């Protein structure tokens, strides 16, 4: 049973570091892991010091990586539609409709929809290929809202398919052509089915885990509180908090010792505020995370 882990958290808390380390940990344990980044900043490539692109690449043994580029995915999708149009319609009409497709590229929902589409594809298609799939999400707090989409979209698609079916039936009565298949209905039902599949996977709480990353500082704690509240509204449970960049006890120097003491206070606050959750504590490193240091934190994710 593959597990799907979503990593969330505000900008700058070290999400990419944590998700990468986490995936290395699983890989070392022998679990076939896929690390997927949805962050347009391509941070995973930076952290690992290798080019992770739009197709799955082997990072190391048991660990594969992929970066989703929503804009690219959207373009791909629209190009496919354009190609399909050319086979069905005359070029004159294709010309007229082209502008509508161009407009779709810049429409507000396109980015999120394309992203969701690709995530669904990965989950459904690669489910059996990997033991763990980890998603490193973009810093915007709404990204985890993607988890509510399957239910919403399946409902919409279902209603639309139902409407289309009733139209097809009525049309059959008017035209007296009772045997014709309707490609639109087929597409709608196919989509509905796919959303249903994803919905089933997400709804099984054994399959999906969400981990929120934060630092033991005032602002990240406050932001985490707000984010969790919002996620709760969408019925998205967050059961693990990854507290990153905790200063080591022997940090030395009065300045840092003061900061460390304050951090300890914040740690206590975190443990009280978010009681009942699992805490994974990650220490602050004395150097940047890069290709050679990337293994250093993986052991903290050992379960």
């Amino acid at each position, binding site marked *: 049973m593959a597990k799907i882990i979503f990593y969330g958290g505000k900008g700058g808390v070290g999400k990419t570091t944590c998700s990468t380390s986490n995936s290395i940990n699983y890989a070392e344990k022998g679990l076939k892991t896929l690390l997927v980044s949805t962050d347009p900043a391509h941070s995973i490539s930076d952290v690992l010091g290798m080019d992770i692109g739009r197709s799955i690449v082997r990072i190391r043994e048991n660990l594969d990586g992929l970066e989703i580029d929503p804009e690219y995915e959207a373009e791909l999708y629209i190009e496919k539609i354009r190609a399909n149009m050319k086979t069905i319609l005359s070029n004159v009409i294709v010309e007229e409709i082209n502008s509508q497709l161009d407009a779709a590229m810049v429409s507000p929902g396109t980015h999120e929809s394309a992203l969701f589409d690709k995530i669904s594809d990965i989950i459904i298609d690669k489910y059996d290929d990997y033991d763990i799939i980890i998603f490193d999400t973009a810093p915007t707090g709404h990204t985890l809202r993607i988890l509510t989409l399957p239910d919403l979209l399946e409902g919409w698609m279902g*209603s639309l398919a139902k409407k289309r079916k009733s139209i097809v039936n*009525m049309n059959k009565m008017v035209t*007296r052509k009772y045997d014709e298949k309707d490609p639109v209905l087929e597409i709608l039902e196919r989509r509905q089915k796919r959303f249903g599949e994803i919905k089933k996977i997400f709804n099984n709480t054994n399959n999906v885990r969400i981990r929120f990353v934060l630092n033991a500082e005032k602002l990240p704690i406050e932001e985490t509180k707000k984010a969790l509240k919002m996620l709760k509204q969408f019925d998205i449970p967050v059961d693990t908090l990854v507290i990153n960049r905790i200063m080591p006890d022997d940090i030395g120097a009065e300045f840092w010792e003061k900061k460390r003491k304050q951090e300890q206070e914040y740690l206590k606050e975190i443990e009280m505020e978010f009681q009942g959750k699992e805490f994974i504590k990650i220490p602050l490193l004395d150097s940047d995370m890069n290709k050679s240091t990337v293994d250093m934190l993986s052991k903290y994710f050992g379960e």
Partner: protein
Amino acid sequence: MNSIWLIIFSIIAFIIAYATYGAWLAKHWGLDATKKTPAHTMNDGVDYVPAKAPVLLGHHFSSIAGAGPIVGPIGAAMFGWLPVMLWIVIGSIFFGGVHDMGSLFASVRHGGRSIGDVIGHTMGSKGKKLFALFAWLTLILVVAAFTNIVASAFVSTPEAATSSILFIALAILFGVGVYRRGVSLAVGTVIGVILLAVAVWVGILFPISLSINTWMIILIGYIFVASVTPVWILLQPRDYLNSFLLYAMLAGGIIGLFVMRPEIQLPAYTSFKVGSNYLFPILFITIACGAISGFHSLVGSGTTAKQLDTEADIKLVGYGAMLIEGVLATLAIITAAYLSADKLAEVTAAGGALNVFADGIGTFMGSMGFPQLVAKNFVTLAISAFALTSLDTATRLARFIFQEFFTSDKEGAASNGFTNTLTNKYVSTLITVIIGGTLAFRGYQLVWPIFGSANQLLAALALLALALWLKRTGRQYKMAVYPMVFMFIATLVALVLLMMANLANPILLVFAVALFILAIVLILESRAAFASTEELD
């Protein structure tokens, strides 16, 4: 005097009116045969398609003709046939004809859009809301009035009840066979017509006798179920098969009339006060369809305005159709006029206006050799089938208006995938049916005048919009104002009398009061609108 003279008189009067007043209206309104109509400027090959004038006339006429012009005149026959005839003729010529022709003209000049748009254009959104409200109230009253009428007919002619039930089954069979399964229309029609004849025959063998209240409850249940089912199962087949019934009946009736040529026995004029009804205003609101009816503006401006080939046809289609309906109303009054006053009262008491009509046409056809009972059953079936279809449609239309205006801000479609629509459909239908049904139990005598009042206030509103538009576009408009004023006076007086008569009936009282208040609001709106001097295109 022979009743044929009534038909001859009305036809001649209408022909003269058509050639004179109709032409006068066309001239003074500036109907322009050279101006391209929406059927040409917005031709889309589907809705906006020019149609030949006679065909369009036929289409428009069949849209506006219904049970109204039959029930109204017979219901007013208590005052004698002369007042009825005069109102039918004068009303159609100077009131209804102006209303219908004017609404059509205004619609055409507004891009083929409905009269509601004209109202919105001249009176703003307040006027439009009023219009919707009137339409909704009138539709509910249609449900009330027609339910009662059909139930009464079933009581006096239980054979027709059986035949009607069989007709429903037959319609469903047709719907499933022809639409769902693909049986050819020709085959389905032939089988349908044969089975209709069988239904008439079986009805005579096995009449179903129930009390009027029982029938009304059954009818209310039927309306609810029928109006929420998809159209292909019941409504569409009914509407289609109805036309065969109807035209057969009309043909039989008219031929039979000319064969029998019955003498008029009813007095030309009885008295100003009959029972608790005064000739003014009761005569004028009892006969709505057949003289002036607000529904015509809505029914016609839907498709007719979009299919008009040239403005020169407006006279024929708008004015002409109303006059033809006047002839239909004349036919109806004859079925009452050839009876003596006592006999008329007797037949009316047995089953209402519908019974009088069916009895009459049945007798006329009987003179041609048809067994009278068969003919009567057939006519009752035809008219009640018509009325039942109207009930179904009226409920659906009322539901649309209700959903659009009276439901709370539940934009169901926007957020969670249309699931709310289901609830709304049944709830709003239920509301319509319950209100209409409850009113129906009050009886024809009380409901029909309120229905007539509402229908004519609807017409007054359309006339108002018409007058405003004519005035503001620099045309002659007084010919629309005088009928409107008369309508206001008649309906207001009627509503006051009705309110006084219905102090013990809360729902009727509420309706009468509501209509009265709305009429006042409308009058105030019109004063304000007329006072404004802004020019319109």
